[in-house]
């Protein structure tokens, strides 16, 4: 064959062989999904997620799930750095609204709508709407944390109070608080540290008084504008200070300090989620079985409590969204929801678990489920929520704790500042 014909022909043939070969190889190479959530570094969750991954991989040969372990406080930072380079892990659990607004997440409607009704009915509309942004679904709610009031039975009884009749209104709570405060011991702790837990608790008190922190479409802040909100704020922050019922140093009290105080018996009650009970027992085994739970005190009927919602999402950098959805579906299954509830004390968000024997076997969990029937989801759905919850609102709380007589002014300033930020997107 003439050389000038042979060479291109051979080249073409070689190219065809190479392409076929690499396609074969690629078909055999497993898809690797990276999974990043702040909870993978929670020690009690570790055996569960390892099992989840093992069983998923066994059922789906050709897909591998690679967990990305990050310290909780740096989880978002790492996610943003990777997203900016379009190399974020496929499956993530992050602040949904902020991430969706910034283009870091992929809408999931096409996957959701393709699922059978059988699967979809486990999530109520209200639950789903907590994972929506501008009408599109960006995550599947997997687990959450409902907040309630946890009491130390021994301290309550010691103060001459009846554990079967926890306080229902603000005034009753204050009366209890006075009795539970003694020398070197306080009724509760006011959360004023520089994390968004401070904001969570503040919101609950506001809602419990029938107040609102924002208007309906979150374009305006009403911490001071709404008189019931301001009243609740003053009441709650008034626990702190000399002669109050709250432990000292509220501006440095976060979840860690609060649970420490409770575990060591320095405070008799705390506003917290179910996982806090496990933490307390872990810190101080003598506290096992000593706590009881009640709905947070409220001045209006049907006041909602707060429930954090953690959803699994697919990042916009994901190269294999189909496989990612498979894993998310798998992880959202009943088995894992129950395991998480039992072992890590994380509330399931499916509505079809009320009859599960394992769930029913834990009375405190049942109580939490019940209290959680009337809860508002958190974080609030606004792209700047992450910032205002951890910075601006906390700053205002800290200022008010340091200068209580300026509370009105401080929260009016907060309203103005927040309203500006809320509108600036």
């Amino acid at each position: 064959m003439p050389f000038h014909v042979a060479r291109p022909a051979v080249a073409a043939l070689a190219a065809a062989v190479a392409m076929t070969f690499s396609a074969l190889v690629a078909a055999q190479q497993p898809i690797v999904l990276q999974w990043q959530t702040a909870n993978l570094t929670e020690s009690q969750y570790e055996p569960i997620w390892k099992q989840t991954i093992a069983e998923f991989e066994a059922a789906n040969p050709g897909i591998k799930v690679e967990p990305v372990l990050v310290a909780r406080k740096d989880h978002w930072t790492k996610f943003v750095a990777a997203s900016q380079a379009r190399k974020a892990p496929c499956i993530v659990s992050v602040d949904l609204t902020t991430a969706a607004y910034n283009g870091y997440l992929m809408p999931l409607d096409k996957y959701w709508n393709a699922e059978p009704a059988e699967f979809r009915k486990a999530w109520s509309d209200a639950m789903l709407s907590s994972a929506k942004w501008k009408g599109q679904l960006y995550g599947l709610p997997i687990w959450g944390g409902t907040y309630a009031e946890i009491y130390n039975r021994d301290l309550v009884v010691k103060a001459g109070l009846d554990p079967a009749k926890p306080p229902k209104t603000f005034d009753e709570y204050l009366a209890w608080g006075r009795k539970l405060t003694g020398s070197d011991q306080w009724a509760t702790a006011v959360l004023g540290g520089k994390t968004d837990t401070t904001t969570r608790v503040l919101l609950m008190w506001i809602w419990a008084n029938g107040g609102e922190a924002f208007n309906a479409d979150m374009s305006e802040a009403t911490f001071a504008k709404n008189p019931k909100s301001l009243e609740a704020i003053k009441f709650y922050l008034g626990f702190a200070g000399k002669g109050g019922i709250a432990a000292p140093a509220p501006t440095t009290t976060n979840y860690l300090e609060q649970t420490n105080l409770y575990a060591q018996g320095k405070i008799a009650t705390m506003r917290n989620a179910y996982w806090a009970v496990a933490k307390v027992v872990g810190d101080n085994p003598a506290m096992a079985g000593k706590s009881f739970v009640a709905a947070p005190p409220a001045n209006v009927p049907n006041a909602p409590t707060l429930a954090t919602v953690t959803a699994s999402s697919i990042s916009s950098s994901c190269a294999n969204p189909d496989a990612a959805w498979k894993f998310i579906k798998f992880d959202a299954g009943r088995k894992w929801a129950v395991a998480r509830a039992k072992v890590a004390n994380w509330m399931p968000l499916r509505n079809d678990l009320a009859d599960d024997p394992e769930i029913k076997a834990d009375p405190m969990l049942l109580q939490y489920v019940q209290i959680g029937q009337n809860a508002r989801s958190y974080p609030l759905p606004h792209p700047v929520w992450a910032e205002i919850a951890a910075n601006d609102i906390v700053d205002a709380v800290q200022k008010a704790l340091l200068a209580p007589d300026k509370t009105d002014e401080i929260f009016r300033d907060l309203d103005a500042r927040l309203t500006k930020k809320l509108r600036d997107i």
Partner: protein
Amino acid sequence: MTPRRRRRAGLAFVAPAAAFLAAVIVFPLGHAFWTSLHRVRGLNATFVGLGNYVRIFGDDAFWHSLGVSFAFTASAVVLHLAIGLALALVVNELRVGRTALRILFLTPWMVAPAVGATIWLWLLEPQFGVVNYLLRVAGIIPSPVAWLGEPATAFASVVAVDVWRGVPFVMLLMLAGLQTIPVEQYEAAAIDGARAWTRFRYVTWPNLRYLVVVATTLDLINTIRHYDIIGVMTGGGPAGATEVLPVLIYNTAFRGNRLGEAAAIGVALLAIVLVLAIVYVRAARLDDDKAAR
């Protein structure tokens, strides 16, 4: 060697480091400048020229943070120097155990800043912390002090922890310098009947001056960009009392997700320090001229 060959030889030596730094420092630096000129919302970046700078200069938070940064850096660096020098003088006079002491005093520098800060966080904890416990047992304070809970004490606490972290390096530098001062100079001073302060002023200090400049410059740079201690201990609180610029930058970038503004704050910080450095160098040169006369 011809001048040309000298230059080529010199370039050959300097080139590896320069190329390395160009790739690894200049690109991220340039990127930071570039980002500061854009309004960044996630994956969307729109060019806004100096818009970010206008915004941050118009924001109280920036000026407040700048003030806190200056106060923090100035206090920390001055204390590093004063205490480091004092310690070096003390250790220098001791005849025994100097090496062991040097190693002992270096300990804070060897612990990772975040870990050290966490431990100090515990030590200063009002209810369970060791500091309050010891102070109460010694009868110095009647009830627990919320060290990190009040603005003034929080500021003092983070400065104190930064002093703990930073003194070892300065002390080591000063100690080394002290040990190279020729004994003859001290003997001459003694013959002239000089007292301790005079000895320090006319023998010790002149010999240490360059070292002090080196130590201070490095210290300033490290302290003004330092994030870990304040980030771990107070997060910038309470009520912004310890919110230095690195904390503001971090919060703006990763809580506020406003990467363009955060970059602008960083660049503004650089510019301000540059101006101060130029002023300082000018002043130092004038001083030298005066001293020379």
